[in-house]
């Protein structure tokens, strides 16, 4: 057991440990102990603020009527400020709530990343999980902060709300021509679907070789055993290529990281670098048919 390196002022764990009987046979049943720590406390409070501001914003829309809140929850949305406000601090009703909520959401994510980092190091692990998480953080920052600042308007950031986030996804694509023609979006989606394939392959392989103990991956990496051998041979015989217990996790991390990084680059290039991805497709010559749809 590695030693605790980070000493924190909020250093405490929950005392009770619970067990979920329902999960028996499927997964580990133990819940807790949860570690608090300074970064955990900060993340918790800033997330609480974010939720509180969002709740106030939503509450104003429904007149603080709880039944109306439930009924309209799917379409309740906190919008960013209108384009006329640019990057200014907007009045609360006109996007100020969104700005505050986004600020605290960003802080939460940053604190959470630091928290994972300190916990990983304290438990003697390499900080790979926070590094992987920071890829997602980069995508978040690209969408919510860097792109809006680059185009000089918070209005291009996604609103907060169930329908709002879907509308933004749709409309961002429509505004910049067609995101399917964005090559970085293509790479990102390729990696996203590829991640699911790799996950299914890896999960299925390990489940299939449970009886031989292939799931003890940390041990298998150092000294591979019968289960890992059979798992490797399965893929070698099926498709002529096999990863090892170690390299499959490198593939995993690589693909999953590529999703976020390529997606972030695609978002950042939209607007300043390329306002219309379909026209980019026209110039690249990849539009199917006779390129008739490329209006002059």
């Amino acid at each position, binding site marked *: 057991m590695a030693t605790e390196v980070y000493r924190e002022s909020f250093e405490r764990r929950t005392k009770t440990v619970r067990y979920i009987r329902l999960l028996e046979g499927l997964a580990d049943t133990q819940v807790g102990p949860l570690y608090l720590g300074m970064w955990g406390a900060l993340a918790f409070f800033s997330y609480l603020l974010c939720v509180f501001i969002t709740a106030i914003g939503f509450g104003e829309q429904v007149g603080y009527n709880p039944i109306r809140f439930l009924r309209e929850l799917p379409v309740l949305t906190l919008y960013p400020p209108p384009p006329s406000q640019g990057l200014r601090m907007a009045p609360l009703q006109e996007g100020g709530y969104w700005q505050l909520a986004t600020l605290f959401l960003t802080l939460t994510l940053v604190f959470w990343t630091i928290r994972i980092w300190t916990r990983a190091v304290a438990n003697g692990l390499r900080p790979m999980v926070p590094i992987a998480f920071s890829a997602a953080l980069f995508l978040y920052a690209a969408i919510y902060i860097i792109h809006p600042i680059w185009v000089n308007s918070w*209005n291009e950031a996604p609103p907060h709300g169930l329908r709002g986030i879907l509308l933004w996804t749709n409309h961002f694509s429509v505004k910049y021509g067609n995101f399917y023609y964005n090559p970085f979006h293509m790479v990102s989606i390729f990696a996203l679907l590829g991640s699911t394939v790799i996950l299914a392959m890896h999960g299925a392989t390990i489940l299939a070789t449970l009886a031989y103990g292939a799931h003890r991956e940390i041990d298998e990496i150092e000294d591979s055993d019968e289960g890992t051998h059979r798992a490797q041979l399965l893929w070698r015989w099926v498709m002529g290529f096999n990863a090892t217990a170690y390299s499959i996790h490198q593939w995993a991390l690589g693909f999953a990281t590529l999703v976020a990084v390529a997606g972030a680059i695609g978002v950042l290039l939209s607007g300043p670098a390329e306002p219309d991805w379909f026209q980019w497709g026209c110039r690249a010559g990849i539009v199917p048919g006779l390129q008739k749809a490329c209006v002059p």
Partner: protein
Amino acid sequence: MSSIENDPAPPGAVAVYDEKQRTILRGELVGLVAMTILALGGVIALSMALVDWRAFQGFRAESTYNYAGIQQVDFVEYLRRNNKTLAQPSAEALQAYSAWQQKNPQTVNVQVLTQYLGPEYNTTAKVFEYMSKYFTPGVGQSCEYCHNLENFAAYDKPQKTTAKAMLIMQFELQNKWISTIPRPEGQPLYQLQCATCHYGQAQFWNSVDKNNPTLANLAKFGIAGGGNPTQYDMKHYGITLNGKPPASYEIVDDKLLAARPDAKGEVNYFQVTATKDTPPGLNDTYRNQAAMYHMNVALNVGCDFCHYGGYFKSYVLEDGTFKWPKSQSRHMVGMIQDIAINWFPQMPKVDPARGDLAQPNCWMCHRGNVVPPGAYSPGAGEVPQKVSDPQIRPLVDLPLPAPKLPQK
């Protein structure tokens, strides 16, 4: 736990463990099948119970545009679906008409029909034919609703003044917008008549059906459902009508009313795809999508009915096939703009206390059909006007010279 698992397994343990895993997998598969059946059944049940099943029967979103699968719903059939019947002149009115016709075989003071339809409308019988065939079923009222049965030529009812103005509007819109709609060869040219908008109701649809907020009614107006913006949404998108967010978004807003043709004579009411000069912000895109969803619901078609799915801005498919509906719907939005700016504001009202007339929109005539059931389908003998070159017709400059409407 690691210490236990690292121990060598006792003989037989592997087999037992394998058996347990198999049981788990079997349970998971059964649960999966049950979930799928539940989800399928749930959606089908919800759709049958809550979505208007009839609307779906005639629906096929065509990925390539042609009129092959699109039939006009018969007007009588449409009325029957809405639990209405074709209105007929009352017996009393027929009696009064025959007395009037005996007295005046030639028309007295008939102006609009002779001007727009031709000099043959100079006999009372001919005018009666037109009135009973188009006016009565279209507006759903017998002659006495507008006419003084003692004297058919008199203007002593405000309804008659309004009806005359409406008739002028019908012919003017027909000439300016409907007859000039860009269309491929062979596509039939439908015509406006009273029923095209009124659908057998004298009082306008928005004021009647909207006050009866049943689910079916509201769903048809596109008010319910996820696709329409709420008032709060409209406030943020900057959608206003007469300076304030309208109760529900129905295409006519201040931006549409203010839109004027550019130097090329084209009006880009809803253009959103960015160029190098596009100002930042997504609000115009949100407004655009609200308008598009209104058209979806009004015509009961998916977006690719008008658009090339790969690029909404384009007027052609990837193989160069011209998407007629896109230029047609632009043309039609021009008509809505024309009605909203030039016709409705000066329309003489039957009851001035009723406030402003509702704004025109796509649903007003289309009601969930590509071809409005209320549109007049020309006879086989009439050759539709041919437009062979697939150019987008520039919209006629707005505003129009003020139409000549009769004063009360």
